[in-house]
């Protein structure tokens, strides 16, 4: 089985330096692109590959790039941003790519930047990823020295500057328009759209924000072709996918597998099944902001459309497992506490509704809930849903809540009836 994204990553060993990365075929794709491909051809290859964004929403990467104004009339400079904020609870896949193979990301960024003819690129890194920061800074310096960054890259007329920007610990900075405000040194509240960042992003110029894993796929697509990439997948969405599992499984971790690998295979073969003494109850397939799935969904394939059909989202592909010894109400309370804290406060439904939701759940968990609380929670799930808030944070927060009300109704009712948490 081919594992392009992780083939250079050896647990417990330092990331490959530039020379090692080049020995494994690294920067061949940049050579090829700068010598043989026009920006439009490069974008076309990525379109053909069916690469969909790995940041959670699954937007087709090639078509996203194609919205950036090109040619003489485009406002300059244009920007490319690698979104390495990764603050979604349960998600840790980008960290592994950043720490394990920084040149793969840098090469992907050079290619993406070339495709949209950007002059500058930023890696927007979350504050807590200290090791990733050290690894990246070293790799960026090496890349400049080798002439893959800076003026006249590989003797061409193309020029690109690349910087590492380290954030300061807020989840909303990962939302792409909040990220742009953060980079401009403003409070990181999201922006209204349209205009979309592709046409009016950083300082009003054309900007692409892509997830780390998305960008890491690009060198492989350019080197091996769109068809090769499509065939890595078991379904229609191209490529491999990094899948993770955390919670009470025997071997929590991260695995690169064909896109569309069934949940059961990830859970049982790779995560080793549940720890002794606990049983599987449910899972969040793609991080904190995705709907719960249960036993009946274990044969669902982990790709964008299959997980959506099952009523949830692929999200980040890093699953959080709920076991029978952990209280589902407590878990949902923990999730909403995170979202309430991380609300940027810009729009009223989210700023007011999330803390309210969190308080109701806290009361139920503490044995002070009332039956009418369940209706109030369901009402919030509706009023904070898609289309009613300024960004996707609040609707994301409602996904685990609404599905918990559906699958764990009896557990909520038991808390209220018995006036205590049955798990404590």
């Amino acid at each position, binding site marked *: 089985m081919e594992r392009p994204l992780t083939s250079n990553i050896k647990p417990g060993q330092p990331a490959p330096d530039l020379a090692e990365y080049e020995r494994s075929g690294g920067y061949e794709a940049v050579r090829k692109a700068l010598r043989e491909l026009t920006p439009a051809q490069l974008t076309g290859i990525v379109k053909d590959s069916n690469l969909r964004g790995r940041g959670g929403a699954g937007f087709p990467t090639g078509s996203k790039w194609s919205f950036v104004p090109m040619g003489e009339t485009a406002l300059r*400079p244009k920007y490319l941003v690698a979104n390495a904020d*990764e*603050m*979604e*609870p*349960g*998600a*840790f896949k*980008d*960290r592994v790519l950043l720490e394990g193979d920084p040149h793969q990301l840098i090469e992907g960024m050079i290619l993406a930047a070339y495709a949209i003819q950007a002059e500058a690129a930023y890696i927007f890194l*979350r*504050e*807590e*990823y*200290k*090791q990733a920061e050290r690894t990246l800074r070293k790799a960026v310096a090496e890349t400049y020295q080798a002439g893959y960054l800076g003026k006249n890259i590989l003797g061409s007329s193309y020029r690109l500057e690349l*910087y590492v*920007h*380290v*954030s*300061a*610990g*807020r*989840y909303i900075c990962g939302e792409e328009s909040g990220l742009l405000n*953060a*980079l*401009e*040194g*403003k*409070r*990181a509240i999201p922006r209204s759209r349209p205009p979309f960042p592709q046409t009016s992003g950083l*300082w009003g110029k054309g900007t692409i924000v892509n997830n780390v894993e998305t960008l890491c796929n690009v060198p492989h697509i350019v080197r091996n072709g769109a068809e090769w990439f499509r065939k890595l997948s078991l379904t229609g969405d191209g490529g491999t996918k990094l899948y*993770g*599992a*955390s*919670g*009470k499984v025997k071997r*929590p*971790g*991260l695995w690169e597998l064909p896109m569309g690998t069934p949940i059961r295979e990830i859970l049982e073969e790779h995560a080793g099944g549940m720890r002794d003494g606990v049983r599987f109850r449910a899972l*969040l397939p793609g991080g*904190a902001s995705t709907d719960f799935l249960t036993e009946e969904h274990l044969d669902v394939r982990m790709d964008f459309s299959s997980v959506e059909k099952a009523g949830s989202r692929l999200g980040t592909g*890093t699953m*959080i*497992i*709920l*076991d029978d010894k*952990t209280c589902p109400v*407590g*878990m949902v309370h*923990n*999730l909403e*506490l*995170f979202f309430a*804290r*991380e609300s*940027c406060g810009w729009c009223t439904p989210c700023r007011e509704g999330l803390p309210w939701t969190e308080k109701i759940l806290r009361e139920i968990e503490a044995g002070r809930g009332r039956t009418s609380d369940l209706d109030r929670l369901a009402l919030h799930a509706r009023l904070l849903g898609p289309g009613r808030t300024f960004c996707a944070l609040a609707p994301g927060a409602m996904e685990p809540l609404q599905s918990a009300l559906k699958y764990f109704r009896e557990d909520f009712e038991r808390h209220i009836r018995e006036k205590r948490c049955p798990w404590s």
Partner: protein
Amino acid sequence: MLTPEEIRELEADLAHYPQKQSGCVDALKIVQRRRGWISDDTLREVAVYLEMTPEELDGVATFYPVIFRRQVGRHIIRICDSVSCWIMGYEKVYSALNGTLGIRLGETTADGRFTLLPSACLGVCEHAPALMIDDDLIADWNPGNVDGILSRYP
């Protein structure tokens, strides 16, 4: 007054951005690393340097949990209380630290050595429960060895 050393570091950083304001989070961090926290006076000095109003800069400073607008201890302990760590034993980590240090979240020990804070997911959920002390990540934590770990932070 910003020191010449601070200004040198700020200048190198600001070269990465087309506008000074973009470097404001970096600037706050650079100054905080030397001074421990961002007092109102410090905030004003940095704002002047960045050609921002103090209000604008405070709007950014107060947005971020690792920019401290109040005095904190010499070492910052941030316990991850997000979902995977919660499932894997956040409560035990918290009780162990709370028991040893005698402080709750948001508090600083009387000797000014440690401040205890909650943190959102640290991105190491496969090694839950996790926490950070200053820049060090401590993962797969079991509360058995609290004293040994804390002794590394005088």
